[in-house]
């Protein structure tokens, strides 16, 4: 176990360094002068020179990289080539919106996957199972941006139940926050829910076939208790790790959902950065996403190594 943890940590650090080099390269691979591109015709010569100075673009590349990564480690991601604001501030303003969307989406995914997957595993080849298979296939294939637009058409337009887009902070007005969150969260959560449905189904099916379940039934345990204490407890432990991985992917999935629902999060900002040719802002955003992804994956892998289903079974049986 310790060996595995160390190996996995070293691996992550190597990948992280590589990722930082790739992200660093974004600004330097752009054809032309990134600061001139960002300023367009608006900036004066002085602003241009000041920006160039601040970004350190005249230093040798290696020096620039170490300066950049050094400040990134202290939380300084440089300034926006467009507005001159610190990138870290621009990002942190957007984090709450993206996080609430991703968290809500994972809740939606679980609400779809756990009941549907369990029911279809309990009755294989029944209409419920058939429905679960078909709907998870459809959920994987449906373009989320289209689904979002159709939701807006139906629930915001025709029925007028929900707002068509935008974001209200939780602290400002919890009710409005929730109302604005529903459609984007469902849109972003459906694909993950579909994948997790399949996973829950196979996981529950497997648990149902275990000897300890047969034993529990044989000793006369009530079906409901067998389900709760033996089947679900064991089937859903691996789901923790799958859910973790899904959360990492959801963070990327929200990019387009944010655009559809005018959700002021990081994904929307990344696209705005591309449109404004604000490469330093794009750099910071991409770096943040990649780091989150790597960290979540690392944690999930370590958790999985720790959460051996047999160990959790022993705990469950002890009750």
């Amino acid at each position, binding site marked *: 176990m310790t060996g595995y943890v160390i190996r996995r940590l070293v*691996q992550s650090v*190597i*990948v992280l360094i*590589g*990722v930082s080099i*790739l992200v660093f390269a*974004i600004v330097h*691979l*752009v054809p032309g002068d990134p600061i001139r591109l960002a300023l367009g015709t608006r900036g004066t010569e002085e602003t241009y020179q000041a920006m160039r100075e601040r970004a350190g673009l005249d230093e040798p590349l290696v020096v620039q990289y170490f300066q950049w990564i050094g400040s990134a480690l202290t939380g300084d991601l440089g300034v926006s080539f467009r507005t001159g604001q610190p990138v870290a501030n621009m990002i942190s303003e957007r984090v709450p919106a993206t996080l609430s969307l991703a968290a809500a989406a994972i809740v939606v995914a679980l609400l779809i996957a756990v009941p549907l997957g369990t029911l279809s595993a309990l009755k294989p080849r029944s209409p419920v199972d058939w429905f679960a298979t078909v709907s998870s*296939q*459809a959920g*994987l*294939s*449906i*373009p*989320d*941006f*289209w689904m979002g*637009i*159709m939701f*807006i*058409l139906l629930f915001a*337009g025709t029925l007028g139940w929900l707002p068509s887009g935008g974001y209200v902070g939780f602290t400002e007005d919890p009710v409005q926050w929730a109302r604005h969150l529903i459609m984007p969260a469902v*849109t972003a959560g*459906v*694909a*993950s829910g*579909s*994948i997790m449905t399949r996973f829950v189904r*196979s996981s529950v*099916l*497997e648990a149902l076939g275990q000897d300890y379940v047969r034993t529990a039934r044989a000793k006369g345990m009530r079906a409901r208790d067998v389900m709760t204490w033996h089947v679900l407890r064991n089937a859903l432990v*691996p789901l923790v790790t799958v859910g973790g*991985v899904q959360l990492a*992917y*959801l*963070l*990327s*999935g*929200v*990019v*387009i*959902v944010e*655009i*559809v629902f005018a959700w002021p999060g990081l*994904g929307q900002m*990344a*696209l705005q950065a*591309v*449109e404004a*040719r604000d490469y330093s802002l*794009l750099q910071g*955003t*991409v770096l943040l*996403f990649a780091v989150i*992804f*790597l960290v979540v994956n690392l944690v*999930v*892998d370590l958790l999985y190594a720790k959460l051996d*289903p047999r160990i959790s079974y022993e705990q469950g049986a002890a009750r």
Partner: protein
Amino acid sequence: MTSEGSERRSEERVEPFAEGARRQARPGGEGGEVTSEGSIQTAGDTADTVAIMGEKHRSRWVETLVLLVRNPMAVASSLVLLVLVIVGVFGDVLAPYGYNEQFVGDQLESPSGSHWFGTDDFGRDVFSRVLLGAEVSLRVGAVAVGISLVAGVLIGLLAGYYGRWIDDALMRFMDMLFAFPALLMAIAVLAILGRGETNAMVAIGIVYTPIFARVTRASVLTVREEVFIRASRASGAGDFRIIFRHVLPNAAPPIIVQTTISLAFAILSEAALSFIGLGTQPPDPSWGRMLSEGRGFIEQAWWMALFPGLAIFVTVLAFNVLGDALRDVLDPRQRSALSGKGAAR
């Protein structure tokens, strides 16, 4: 984008649980054949054995086809895809109007006998544009997957076959690419290369390369140590010959499955990139682009957004369903993981 990432998700989901099972599961299935082959081979001539392997191989493909034809889902999805390809190739002939033909005074007309899917804000026939958009979607998807297939399979073959530092170096590089959310990475690549259809193909191609590398590598690992590979090496065959004549054909089934599923996600990615204005540029009829135009008129003209989205959905669904059916037939390891019988923990 969620759905596009989902394939990476499913791959990722499978990785930690199936990596070991994958290696074990093989010999039970197709590997069994190989072992019996191996016993013949120790007694007889190596070259003959390899020839027998070749024949076995062909019969396996025929067997695969038979199994596929028996699966109604596979047949249905293949038919849908066939229709799509026909529409893609003969769209010019089939479409009642040109994709840029404007009917002045007929803007934003609802669906009718003369305009089945209505008209858009420029008075263009939505039905014709959806038909002609098939070509763009299929072409971009195919080229993009072609790029990731060639690059990913080469990387996976080298990593899996040579192992050691080559494996480490290549796969850590793939991990780096894999660490970026799919759509965000495509956006970043397009920020560097500039927007447009060709660059979108390249961007999507890069995004999906690591998946092919991983799938190929894992599959190569299962066949690398097989007796017939060692026999071929002992008989003096060079690495190049061994890799392309023996390793690749035997490692192919999961790669074929991955290709089909990747086509679904590449088409979805193209639509997403065009939707946000970075992919196919106007006036070309791209489904994603049409959707983003339709979004602005959602209150007045729902048909502008409904039909292109439906076209994307049907296309992606068909590739996904076919991919699943192929997996059932070609890659039973995955089947057991999904149906829960084999317990791929």
